[in-house]
């Protein structure tokens, strides 16, 4: 149901019946290792190419999420997913193996919440009973496609972020036991003229702030309504800028625990990740793994996850364009 200008309220309270997170070795060395379902010890996941590895992560995550929901693949009506690869092949090829009617989306690193919002909307509006929302990212495929070959000796600046190797999937159902999806706010493309692809945090922060403000406005809420508001991957620089912008706009973000998935997944002391984590998998595995676990333990009652994406391509950057960004917000509450 439409609420305000660009939000949806899910009155039938679709349930997160099952979730799964699958990550690579580097993420398994981080502080949230215990919250992931599967940790692979080898970055190539035993596959012949990085692209095949990324696809494997996603297939595993979706299959495990469906299993955790107590369902079979045949029972799932739709699969909504996307990733960072050209033509989102990781999702298309995974959808081929899964054989679930497939809706591919592209939101860069905001895909986790874009797909979750759409899945919740399909279930809430009665267009489906069971929908899986999934996304993935792989450090090597992202480096290869957007930046440099993985073994190339380029020096990363301190503003750069490290793409997470991970996949997260969630089964949204019309009824059952589990945390519920209550609200979503769809983002608008925001471009503040930042051109540096090695400083995506700065590019994405305004989009995150725009969506959070729209969400609070559409639902007439204060930030304090949520125990946690977590952005997807703003990391150190974007997170600081988002706080600056909230202060400038007079939004009392300090009422809630305002954090960022990109700041949580790695250990800054032991892991060389410059400003923090990025990638579609970042918000997905931290939300479906760590934050939902905390919710199930009773530590969080209401959280707003605001996944942020930078909608550039290597070509747009080489042509001198700035980086347009988007952020999608989904509210998850303990049942």
């Amino acid at each position, binding site marked *: 149901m439409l609420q305000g200008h660009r939000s949806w309220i899910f009155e039938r309270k679709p349930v997160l019946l099952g979730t799964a997170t699958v990550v690579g070795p580097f993420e398994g060395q981080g502080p949230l290792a215990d919250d992931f379902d599967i940790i692979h010890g080898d970055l190539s996941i035993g596959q*012949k190419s990085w692209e095949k590895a990324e696809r494997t992560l996603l297939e595993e995550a979706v299959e495990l999420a469906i299993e955790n929901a107590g369902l079979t693949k045949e029972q799932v009506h739709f699969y909504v997913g996307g990733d960072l690869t050209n033509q989102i092949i990781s999702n298309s090829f995974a959808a081929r193996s899964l054989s679930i009617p497939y809706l591919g989306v592209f939101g860069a690193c905001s895909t986790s919440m874009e797909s979750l919002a759409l899945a919740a909307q399909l279930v809430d509006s009665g267009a489906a009973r069971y929908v899986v929302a999934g996304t993935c990212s792989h450090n090597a495929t992202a480096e290869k496609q957007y930046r440099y070959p993985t073994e190339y000796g380029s020096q990363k600046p301190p503003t750069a972020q490290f793409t997470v190797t991970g996949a997260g999937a969630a089964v949204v159902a019309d009824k059952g036991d589990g945390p519920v999806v209550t609200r979503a706010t769809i983002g608008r493309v925001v471009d503040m003229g930042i051109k540096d692809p090695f400083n995506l945090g700065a590019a994405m922060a305004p989009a995150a702030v725009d969506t959070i403000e729209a969400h609070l406005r559409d639902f007439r809420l204060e930030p304090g309504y949520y125990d946690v508001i977590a952005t997807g991957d703003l990391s150190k620089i974007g997170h600081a800028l988002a706080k600056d912008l909230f202060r400038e706009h007079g939004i009392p973000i300090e009422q809630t625990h305002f954090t960022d998935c990109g700041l949580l997944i790695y250990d800054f002391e032991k892991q060389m990740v410059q400003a923090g984590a990025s990638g579609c998998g970042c918000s997905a595995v931290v939300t479906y793994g760590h934050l939902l676990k905390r919710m199930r333990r009773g530590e969080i009652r209401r959280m707003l996850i605001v996944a942020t994406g930078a909608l550039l391509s290597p070509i747009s950057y080489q042509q001198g364009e700035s980086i347009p960004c988007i952020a999608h917000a989904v509210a998850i509450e303990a049942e």
Partner: protein
Amino acid sequence: MADEKRKKLTPVQQQYQELAKKREPKRAVLRNCLRAFVSGGTICLLGQAIQQMFIHWGGFPKEKASNPTVAVLILLSVILTSLGVYDKFAQWAGAGSAVPVTGFANSMASAAIEHRSEGVVLGIGGKMFKLAGPVIVFGTVAAFIVGICHWLFG
């Protein structure tokens, strides 16, 4: 030029750019320069030592000894790239690892390794020069211009 681009931004965008600049961590320029100097210098010193070995033990005349020297450095760089070590060294060294011929070899080796999955012809063959291409193009163009100048004024 930068001002021209700046003027195309709206006031809100310009304001945000200034804010973003403030939040950007300061680059440790002096530290990076020192690291580049030490690492680049060490690579060149190593090259010099190898060249001396070719002259004294290999019997190469001085002018010809640079060829096998460069070949050895390229081999070392490709081995270190294949072992996954060169990029870690480069994060520390910066320009010191990129500028010498070892950096050039690394750019080609890393691209060839990365695109192996796309086949020998279009993958390895086609994409090997992805990063090295500009070096070759502009090096050749520069040599051509210098050659013309030498012929005209030399």
